[in-house]
């Protein structure tokens, strides 16, 4: 990546960020408020349903919500990244993948703000994760990013060809939310549903990260490692797909 490309990426991220939060009264506080509100609603509803079956349920739910919001933001931003910049793309020839990467980096920035909330919650519950646990958390986030970016390269192209993908993706993300152990613990699921949830890569990443950070346990280590390798391969394939298709779809914008 040349200096010019880096600066272009930086300006894309800066612009996105300014546009999103400059004109609202609470500014970028919304970044933190949105997942917190989701968390609160979920907490009220599901702590009643699940009772006290999960230790540190608030923390469990919060961490899951914030991680899921992160993943959701990457893919939704990625989905819209090309169409959003279509005017630019029809006039200037910059490296197209920067548009996708730039839009996903916004999700990373938002996540760092939410980390503050997570730290406060941990302090409130008097839990101090070990350095290894923190490292595991960072690794988990990294896998989520790699997976999300891979999906983004793929669906950003598809979105240019199929403009209703946005609605389909929204529904898909809602279904995926409930197929990931965020509001419920994995131990509560039995029977055939378990296969479905087990087939979801997010389940393993979430389980691995959360168990380490909250309960100081190592779980789903090998499956997460496999998912990490698969995500890297998927990212490579989808980037190749993106590079091959991007020039051909220029006239479909």
């Amino acid at each position, binding site marked *: 990546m040349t200096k010019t490309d880096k600066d272009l990426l930086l300006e894309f991220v*800066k612009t996105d960020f300014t546009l999103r939060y400059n004109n609202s009264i609470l500014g970028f506080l919304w970044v933190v408020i949105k997942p917190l509100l989701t968390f609160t609603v979920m907490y009220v509803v599901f702590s009643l349903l699940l009772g006290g079956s999960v230790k540190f349920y608030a923390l469990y739910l919060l961490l899951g919500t914030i991680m899921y919001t992160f993943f959701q933001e990457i893919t939704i931003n990625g989905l819209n990244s090309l169409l959003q910049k279509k005017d630019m793309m029809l006039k200037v020839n910059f490296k197209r993948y920067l548009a996708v990467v730039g839009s996903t980096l916004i999700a990373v920035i938002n996540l760092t703000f939410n980390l503050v909330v997570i730290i406060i919650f941990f302090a409130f519950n008097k839990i101090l994760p070990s350095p290894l646990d923190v490292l595991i958390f960072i690794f988990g986030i990294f896998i989520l990013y790699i997976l999300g970016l891979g999906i983004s390269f793929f669906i950003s192209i598809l979105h240019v060809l199929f403009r209703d993908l946005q609605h389909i993706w929204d529904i898909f993300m809602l279904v995926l939310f409930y197929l990931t152990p965020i509001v419920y613990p994995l131990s509560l699921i039995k029977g055939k549903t378990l296969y479905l949830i087990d087939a979801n890569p997010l389940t393993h990443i979430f389980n691995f990260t959360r168990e380490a950070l909250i309960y100081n346990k190592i779980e789903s280590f090998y499956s997460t490692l496999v998912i990490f390798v698969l995500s890297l391969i998927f990212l490579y394939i989808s980037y190749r797909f993106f590079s091959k298709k991007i020039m051909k779809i220029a006239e479909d914008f």
Partner: protein
Amino acid sequence: MAKKVIEVNNITKNFKIPIERRTQLKDYFIHPLRKAKYRSFVALKDVSFSITEGEFVGIIGRNGSGKSTLLKIISNIYLPNKGEVTVNGKLIPFLELGVGFNPELTAKDNIYLNGVILGLTRDQIKNKYNSIIEFSELQGFEETQLKNFSSGMQVRLAFSIAIQAEGDIYLLDEVLAVGDLSFQQKCFDMFRKLKKDGKTIVFVSHSMGAIEEFCDRVILLEKGSIKDEGKAFGVLQKYNEISFHRIEKKDEVKSNDKFKIKLFNSKNEEISIFKSSEIMRIVLDYKLERKIQNPNIEFIITRDDGTVITSISSYNKFNVDQLENLGKIQFEIDSINFISSEYFISLVIYNKDLTEQIVSIERIKNFKVFSSNNNIKGFFEIAGKWSNI
């Protein structure tokens, strides 16, 4: 031999225009087996040319002749269906001013955003920031959102950033179409500077004056292929013929009377592009099946927007007994000192007392004038002399 910086080899570009638009997945669920129908539109057909370093090349052609598509293929925005383009050197496309401008951002943010899109680094923009603000005359508005700027201010800002871009090859697509006279003057100054610095420039424009002034070579596109190529004056002549051919067809005279107007210069060449101060002979060539007694002939010269520049009437000046069979009548203008533009001649033939129009043909002929003096306001330069007394 000079280095070739752009080589275009046998470029063909088709656009698929869907008859039935399919941009939604839904459509594939509703009619999974029906194939989408397309109409193919050939935008460019087997176009080849090359441009050497330091050349200023103009591309002209009517709307839809493929000029913009060609620029987009050279800029690597569209892929051609066939053929290939080689570009040696850093290419800066100006297909539009202010690409990426966002109305919600401040002028400062927009300068950085537009700058990096044009290939500058943030450090370079930082160094040039003051001169950009100064040149655009926007001191004190740096933190104002772009949406609060007038369109003139926006164009000024965009242009000020554009001139800071550093490349070897510039593609300019009708950048001059916007802005007032003083802005256009600034654009011309920029062109002169680029030309002086030895940059290669490809320039698409409808402004014949600018093409004539700057271009070493002009390429004429018509329906996606190269119709003519060479020195500006000759190619523009050809372009004018093509354009006029279209107009002539539209205004065909229905009766059997035939009127034609031809324009000649002092060397007795029939042309349609004149340099101001040249002699212009307007020749009316007629073929009639009836007699018109004591006609008064009038040529009305208008601009494209319909503004009448002047009219030339034979009333009280020149007596014609009658028009019959074949014949020619001419009016000689000593020097056609109009400002650079395109003009149209309409023909009207009145009866003896100007009470009735016998013949009226609008825009029977068009012509263009190039004036080297671009400082004149209004429509034409008045003949006269300055002196001390």
